[in-house]
C-alpha cells in the first residue's frame, strides 16, 4: 500500500510545504511499512520531480496536461481520488495551504474519509487513528480520532520539519480521465504579491502595528525583514488605515501564521491579533509600553522605542550574517 501526498508546485517548483508533507508521509510510512507516492498536478521538470525522491517518495505520479496549468478544485479532487484508488492508498497527506484547503475537504467528501486539517504532529496512535491539531485559533489543542477506512491529514505549514530521506524514485506521467464539466472554476488572473516570501510559508515574520505612526516609517521594518530573509505582516488597524496592504494583516480576521520567529514591533497584543500568531515558535515583542499585553506571550522582549531599536537590530543581523 502507499501513502499518497498532494505535492504542490508553484512556477514548476515544489513549494516548501510540499517537502514538509513528503517528510511527514515518509515518517508515517516507516512505521506502517508503506511507501510514499507523490501526486504532482501541473507543469514541473523531471529534475524537479526527482527531488521528491530526496524526501522519501518512491513514486511520483505526474499530471502534465495544460488543462491543469491553473487550479480547479473539482478537477484536482478527481485526480487525487483516481490516484488514491490506483495506489490503494488508505492515508492521504496534504499541506494545509490555500490549495490544500480547497482540495482535501472535497476529496474527503468524495471518499467518505475523515479529515484532520491543520495537523501539527504525526498520529499519536494508529489504532485508533489519532492526530493532534490546534483549535480555538491556537488557544487549545485537540486530538482527533478518525474512524473511516481512508484517512486524510492536512499538515499545518511550518509544523513539521523537512528531512532528506533519499530513495530511488519512479516517475510516471499519468492522464486521468476528468470530464470537462469538472473544470468548473476558471482562473482569469493570478495576482502575486510582489516577488517576496509568501506570508503563510515564511519561517520568519517581521510585523508592525500602529506604534509605527505612519506608512512612511515602514522602511526600517522592510530593512529588518530583508536582513532576516523574513516576510512582513501588520496589525488590523494598520491595514484598515491603508498603511499596508490587506494581505499582510494577521489575526483573528486576517491571516493565521505559525512561523519559527515572529517579531512584533509597536503592536499592543490584542487577543484578536494574538489569535493569528500565537502558534509561532518564538515570539519577540518590541514596545514602548512595559504593560503591553504582547510581553505576556513573548519569549523575548525589548521595552523601547522602535525608531531607535529597529535600525540597531538590522545592523546586528547584518553583522551576524556577514560573520557566518
Amino acid at each position, binding site marked *: 500500500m502507499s501513502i499518497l501526498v498532494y505535492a504542490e508546485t508553484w512556477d514548476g517548483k515544489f513549494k516548501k510545504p510540499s517537502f514538509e508533507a513528503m517528510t511527514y508521509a515518509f515518517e508515517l510510512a516507516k512505521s506502517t511499512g508503506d511507501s510514499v507516492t507523490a501526486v504532482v498536478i501541473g507543469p514541473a521538470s523531471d529534475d524537479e520531480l526527482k527531488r521528491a525522491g530526496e524526501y522519501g517518495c518512491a513514486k511520483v505520479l505526474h499530471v502534465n496536461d495544460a488543462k491543469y496549468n491553473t487550479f480547479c478544485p473539482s478537477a484536482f479532487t478527481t485526480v487525487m481520488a483516481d490516484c488514491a484508488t490506483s495506489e490503494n492508498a488508505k492515508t492521504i497527506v496534504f499541506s494545509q495551504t490555500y490549495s490544500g484547503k480547497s482540495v482535501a*475537504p472535497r476529496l474527503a*467528501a*468524495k471518499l467518505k474519509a475523515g479529515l484532520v486539517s491543520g495537523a501539527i504532529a504525526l498520529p499519536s496512535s494508529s489504532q485508533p487513528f489519532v492526530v493532534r491539531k490546534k*483549535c480555538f485559533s491556537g488557544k487549545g489543542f485537540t486530538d482527533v480520532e478518525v474512524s473511516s477506512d481512508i484517512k486524510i491529514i492536512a499538515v499545518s505549514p511550518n509544523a513539521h520539519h523537512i528531512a532528506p530521506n533519499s530513495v530511488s524514485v519512479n516517475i510516471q506521467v499519468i492522464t486521468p480521465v476528468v470530464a470537462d464539466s469538472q473544470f468548473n472554476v476558471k482562473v482569469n488572473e493570478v495576482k502575486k504579491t510582489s516577488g517576496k516570501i509568501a506570508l503563510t510559508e515564511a519561517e520568519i515574520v517581521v510585523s508592525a502595528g500602529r506604534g509605527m505612526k505612519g506608512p512612511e516609517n515602514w522602511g526600517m521594518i522592510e530593512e529588518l525583514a530583508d536582513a532576516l530573509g523574513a516576510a512582513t505582516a501588520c496589525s488590523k488597524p494598520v491595514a484598515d488605515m491603508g498603511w499596508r496592504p490587506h*494581505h499582510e494583516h494577521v489575526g483573528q480576521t486576517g491571516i493565521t501564521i505559525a512561523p519559527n*520567529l515572529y517579531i512584533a514591533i509597536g503592536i499592543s497584543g490584542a487577543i484578536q491579533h494574538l489569535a493569528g500568531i500565537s502558534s509561532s515558535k518564538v515570539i519577540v515583542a518590541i514596545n514602548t509600553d512595559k504593560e503591553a499585553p504582547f510581553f505576556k506571550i513573548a519569549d523575548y522582549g525589548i521595552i523601547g522605542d522602535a525608531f531607535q531599536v529597529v535600525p540597531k537590530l538590522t545592523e546586528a543581523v547584518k553583522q551576524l550574517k556577514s560573520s557566518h
Partner: protein
Amino acid sequence: MKFLVCISHVPDTTTRITFTPDGKAFNTAGVQFIINPYDEMALTRALELKEAQGGTVTVINVGLAVTEPTIRKALAIGADDAIRINAEPIDALFVANEIANVAKNEKYDIVFGGRESIDYNGCQVMTMVAEFLELPSVAIATKLDVNGTSATLEREIDGGKEIVSVNLPFVVSAQKDFAEPRIPNMRGIMSARTKPLKVVEPTNAIKASASVAFQSPPAKSECKMISAEHPEELIQLLHTEAKII
C-alpha cells in the same frame, strides 16, 4: 435568486478558552456565543445581493437547541428564514453531509459559508458541501460579484490572489473583506422573533471523526527582557539560544 448561508455558533472572539477537567470537552460555562465572524460576512454579502436583485436568504445551522439565539441573530440581521438540523455538530463530514441533504432539493443559486469556524478551525465544511452537491467551490473568497448566471470572485492563494469566474450554482466560503458585517436594528430584532425557523432531524448517515481530547497550550515561560540600549543582544540570543537565525 435563492441563497443559503451556513452559519456556525462559536465562542465570542475574546473568550478565555478552557476545557473540562477530564480534558474531553470545551468548557462552555459562562461563554458568550456568536455567529462565526466569517459567516456573518457571508450573510451580509448574500443580503446585499438579494437587495440588489431580489430573492431570498435562508440560514442553516447544524446544532442543538442552544444555537437558536445565534440563528435568531442572523434573522435579525436580515435573513428571511432559517433551518436548524437538530444534531451535535461532531465532525465536518457529518455536518456537510446533513447540510447537503437539506440543500439538495432546494436548488439554491449560491451556498455561502465562512472560510473556517473559529472554534475547531476546520476549514472543511463548505468545500465538503460543494462536493456532496457536486457543485463548483471557491474557498477563501474576498470578493463576489454576480452577473446574470455567472459570478466573478477574488480569492486568496499562497503569495497572492486569484480572480476566478464560475457559473451558478456554486459554493463559496468567505474571508475577511467579503463584506462589512451589519449591526441589526430594532426592527430587525423585533421581526426576527416571528420569522420561520424550521427544525429538521439529521439523517446520521456519515460519521468519520471526533475530537476525543483537548489541551490548553503549555504556559509560556517568562518573557526574557533585553535592554533597549543593547538590542544586538537579542540577535545573539536568537542565534545562540533560540537557534532560529
